[in-house]
């Protein structure tokens, strides 16, 4: 009885906001508004940056995930904490911290401007902010995936005289591809939904730094229909992502074989 009540409350909590958005918008209106420049700008910017970010996060995160999963070394705890930090920090704090580091007057910012690179107020700044926030979401599942590869497969490959690089690319990665793909999907989703660090560090300019979450936030203040249109877009993308992952049966999102028992 208590389980049923708690579950109903949970379902209502999660479902009502989604239903609320859907009810707010007239479907015909949504299609009409999808063609508006601010909506398209935000959509394109979001898709572009989140895709780039996912690639960057995977490239940067694979080595760290491998290290954390397979090696012991001095400072391992520090690396673990550091890698998890963006997940815990409030996004606006992250944005502020990014400004302190990469802003014009920041620690690394001065060096960057020597190379003609400026991050705040640029699309590249959006990418950096999103990478910062999304990294832990890839490294977590990736590390777990690597750690779950059974040692005997690695040993077998080694006895067949495979090089470490060959073992990594041809044995470890394929065996953990479910977790890797799930981690990449989480990172993509986190980048897509990133708001606080982006608006603080990269700013807000349509076409250059106004991603969909920023556009929703601004639109809520004077054009609720546009806010609803963008929100529905984001929800749809999230649902497609989740369903797609379940279908391919990958990693965290694989249909789980739950322990179902007959009631006593």
């Amino acid at each position, binding site marked *: 009885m208590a389980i049923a009540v708690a579950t109903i409350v949970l379902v209502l909590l999660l479902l009502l906001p989604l239903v609320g958005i859907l009810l707010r918008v007239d479907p015909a209106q949504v299609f009409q508004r999808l063609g508006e420049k601010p909506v398209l700008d935000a959509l394109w910017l979001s898709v572009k940056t989140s895709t780039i970010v996912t690639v960057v996060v995977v490239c940067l995160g694979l080595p760290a995930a491998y290290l954390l999963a397979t090696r012991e070394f001095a400072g391992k705890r520090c690396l673990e904490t550091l890698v998890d930090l963006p997940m815990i920090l409030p996004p606006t704090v992250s944005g502020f911290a990014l*400004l302190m580091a990469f*802003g*014009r*007057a920041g620690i690394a910012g001065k060096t960057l401007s020597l190379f003609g690179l400026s991050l*705040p*107020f640029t699309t590249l700044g959006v990418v950096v902010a999103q990478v910062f926030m999304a990294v832990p979401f890839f490294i977590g599942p990736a590390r777990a995936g690597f750690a779950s590869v059974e040692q005997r497969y690695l040993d077998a490959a080694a006895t067949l005289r495979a090089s470490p690089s060959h073992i990594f690319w041809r044995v470890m990665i394929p065996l953990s591809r479910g977790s890797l793909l799930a981690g990449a999907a989480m990172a993509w989703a986190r980048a897509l939904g990133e708001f606080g660090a982006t608006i603080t560090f990269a*700013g*807000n*300019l*349509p076409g*250059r*730094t106004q991603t969909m979450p920023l556009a929703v*936030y*601004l639109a*809520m*203040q*004077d054009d*609720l229909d546009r806010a609803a249109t963008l929100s529905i877009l984001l929800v749809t993308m999230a649902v497609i992502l989740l369903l797609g992952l379940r279908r391919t049966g990958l990693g965290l999102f694989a249909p789980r074989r739950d322990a179902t028992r007959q009631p006593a």
Partner: protein
Amino acid sequence: MGHQAWARAISRRNWFAILVPLAFASPLGAQSSSITVFAAASLTAAFTEIATRFETAGGPNVIFNFAGSQQLVAQLDQAAKVEVFASADQRWMDHARDAGRLAGPSTVFVRNRLVVITPRANPGGINRLEDLARPGKKLVLAAAMVPAGQYSRQVLTRLGRRPDFGANYPARVLANLVSEEDNVKAVVAKVQLGEADAGIVYRSDITPSIAREVSIIDLPDSANVIAQYPIAVLTTAPNPSAARAFVDFVLSREGQAILARYGFEPVSGK
């Protein structure tokens, strides 16, 4: 007693008898001891001090929500129990009026002017208004829907009408826009941090601590806008007399003096 004995003792009916009166008691208690005021972001420091004086003089506790006026109006649609709304421009007060939120007519309670600010280090080398139009500068403004953003664009348009600036001055300046913030305080922050080369904010935003970190470029009076801030009591006020008392205090000589100290321009004080 054992756990089960307690549970029997406090049966379901008893819980209702205890909890329901409590639930009614707290909101009622809270209502007579606090009022909620939605005020434009630029009023943050001044209204906070006004509230302190108001409470010392015997008024109820004032709870604030400071944000861009456009955001406050959007929140009014969702919020119950807001007593007073102080907007940075008449446009958003009119929105609230058209939505049927005002209990009575609004009153202009203070005025404000705009200034251009640059970081003290002046990385963009902006020393005169004309420099804002030079290409490659990083200008931060409030978004057009924010009162400060609307006023800023009006000022640029007015400057464009002067022969020494030229008709394409506004366009060239706006080409340097790198970020549109949702309230004027965020514009101040970007300039203060040195990320923006320049921003347009209210004179009242130049607090003593901010003044140490930015340089000011004045706007000529003929091109400047005089921002009119209206204030009104709302229909949702649970405590209209307390709300009215707060508005009266803002309009009183003491309230106007506080506003003047924060860089605002008082309306003729009572």
